[in-house]
């Protein structure tokens, strides 16, 4: 009898847990599902968009993608999508290269000032972005990078977090490997590029997903630096879009869905490494 009651209790607990989890998942996912649903509904000019489309249309997607701006008929949401891809690609590529180079030297080489340089890399983590942003803007202006895509890339091609992560990764590789190559007369560049880099692929994956997400999602800096529609990344473009077509929710949500998809795909593909990096980031704190 007691045993039966315990079984019943357990089943009750389990179903209660599922109920709570389903409710909370609905809470976290429904805003996205609603966005998706509105993007398939014809524009109504009023705000009565339900979760289930009464009329269904695909037209919002091509229309949003090709929507010409008011000031420049050639610039479309597609242009801004391309800008975001370019920025994310180069930020990710260069930071993988530069961070791994510095991380390699800090982990594997002995040279004067090594400890100081590592300390400097950690210091960058403590300096909030908004405290440096005014002079950053002035420097970017002096370098002639205002209103260019390079202005969105150059300041972010290296990060203290990346240097830290790569240093830790290189530290865990046994020294003998490198010494054997040195005895064989391999150059430093060869050792770094052909021998060591392939051994830190998991860290490369972690950094890549972080940088892709980060650069795709950045907003404050593009808001300061870019004023031409033709050079705006998608994020910034969407806020302009929102301002100009307040009532055209179908178009707006189609544009937003287009902006969400690449991040979601990248995240789902790199999930494992992303979570690894998150916990590494927290532990360093």
């Amino acid at each position: 009898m007691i045993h039966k009651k315990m079984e019943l209790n357990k089943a009750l607990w389990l179903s209660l847990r599922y109920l709570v989890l389903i409710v909370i998942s609905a809470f976290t996912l429904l805003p996205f599902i609603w966005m998706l649903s509105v993007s398939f509904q014809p524009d109504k000019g009023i705000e009565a968009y339900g979760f289930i489309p009464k009329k269904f249309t695909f037209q919002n997607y091509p229309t949003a993608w090709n929507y010409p701006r008011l000031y420049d008929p050639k610039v479309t949401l597609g242009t801004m999508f391309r800008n975001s891809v370019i920025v994310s690609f180069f930020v990710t590529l260069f930071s993988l290269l530069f961070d791994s180079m510095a991380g390699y030297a800090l982990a594997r080489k002995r040279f004067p000032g090594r400890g100081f340089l590592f300390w400097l890399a950690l210091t960058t983590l403590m300096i909030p972005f908004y405290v440096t942003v005014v002079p950053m803007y002035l420097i970017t202006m002096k370098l002639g990078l205002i209103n260019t895509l390079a202005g969105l890339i150059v300041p972010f091609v290296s990060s203290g977090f990346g240097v830290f992560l790569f240093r830790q990764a290189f530290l865990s590789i046994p020294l003998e490997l490198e010494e054997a190559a040195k005895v064989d007369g391999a150059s430093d560049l060869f050792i770094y590029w052909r021998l060591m880099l392939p051994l830190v692929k998991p860290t490369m994956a972690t950094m890549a997903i972080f940088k892709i997400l980060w650069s795709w999602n950045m907003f404050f800096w593009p808001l300061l630096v870019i004023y031409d529609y033709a050079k705006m990344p998608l994020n910034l473009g969407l806020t302009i879009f929102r301002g100009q077509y307040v009532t055209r929710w179908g178009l707006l949500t189609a544009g937003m869905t287009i902006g969400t998809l690449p991040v979601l795909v990248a995240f789902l593909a790199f999930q494992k490494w992303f979570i690894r990096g998150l916990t590494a980031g927290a532990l360093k704190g």
Partner: protein
Amino acid sequence: MRKTAREALVSYSFCLPAYLIFTVFIFIPILWSFILSFFDYNILTLSAPRFVGLYNYTKLIKDQVFWVSLRNNALYSIVYVPISLILGFIFALLLNDNFPGRNFFRMAIFIPSVVSLVIESIIWMLIFSAHPSGVINRFIRIFGIPPQGWLSDPRLALFSVAIFMIWRSFGYNMLLYLAAMQNIPAELYEVAELDGAKPWQKALHITLPMVKPTTFFLTVTSVIDSFQIFTPIYIMTGGGPGYSTTTVVNYLYQKGFQEFAMGYASAMSYILFIILVILTVIQRKGFRAEQITL
């Protein structure tokens, strides 16, 4: 001797690109912004920077809007930090052991943390629509509550932004709690079970104390993040109505990049820096105390 000099040269070359970027975009700016905070400098008027001593700081202390912004940051963090931490902890508890669908629920809860904050802010701005047929207004009608101006009512706007940010971030807290819970030895629970402990007792007396360092870390980083909130405010309310949702960074943006008062904005950024440094020091201290007691 030759060899070590060569080795050093090679090492510096490897470090050069990264540290060049740090120097130009972090180290020079952090010093420059300190110097700039003692100058009157407006890049629109094209006049040279003028030394004004502590004027920017004294003006800032008398600036009502700045104090309102600080208060808004504090209010926001009082709502946002505890709720997003508690939700993170509860759902980490519910999703810690293995059962069918666990990974789906974990991902479903975490996904808002990776999607663009800009896009999510726009979604929620539409959801929070003050129109009677807005999504939230239609939902609360079920309970007989009349439609609200979620983002247009000065009493509600900051609270609405906090709800949105809790929705976005508690999944991240959950993941960090889950990682911490992996490290709790299973024997602790086994012993407790032998003593007849109930699930909630185990959660309260074993799990919660064991994840204390994570709680501490998340509290401090969340407070620090709360003092740097910008994007959702910029998109959803623009700091209004009135100044009811203006935060320090929003005000900094307005002063520095709409009025181009660079000196004034720098002074503001340094005060923000001091606040954040104090919070970080508290974190370090707490962490050390934590390690000693463990």
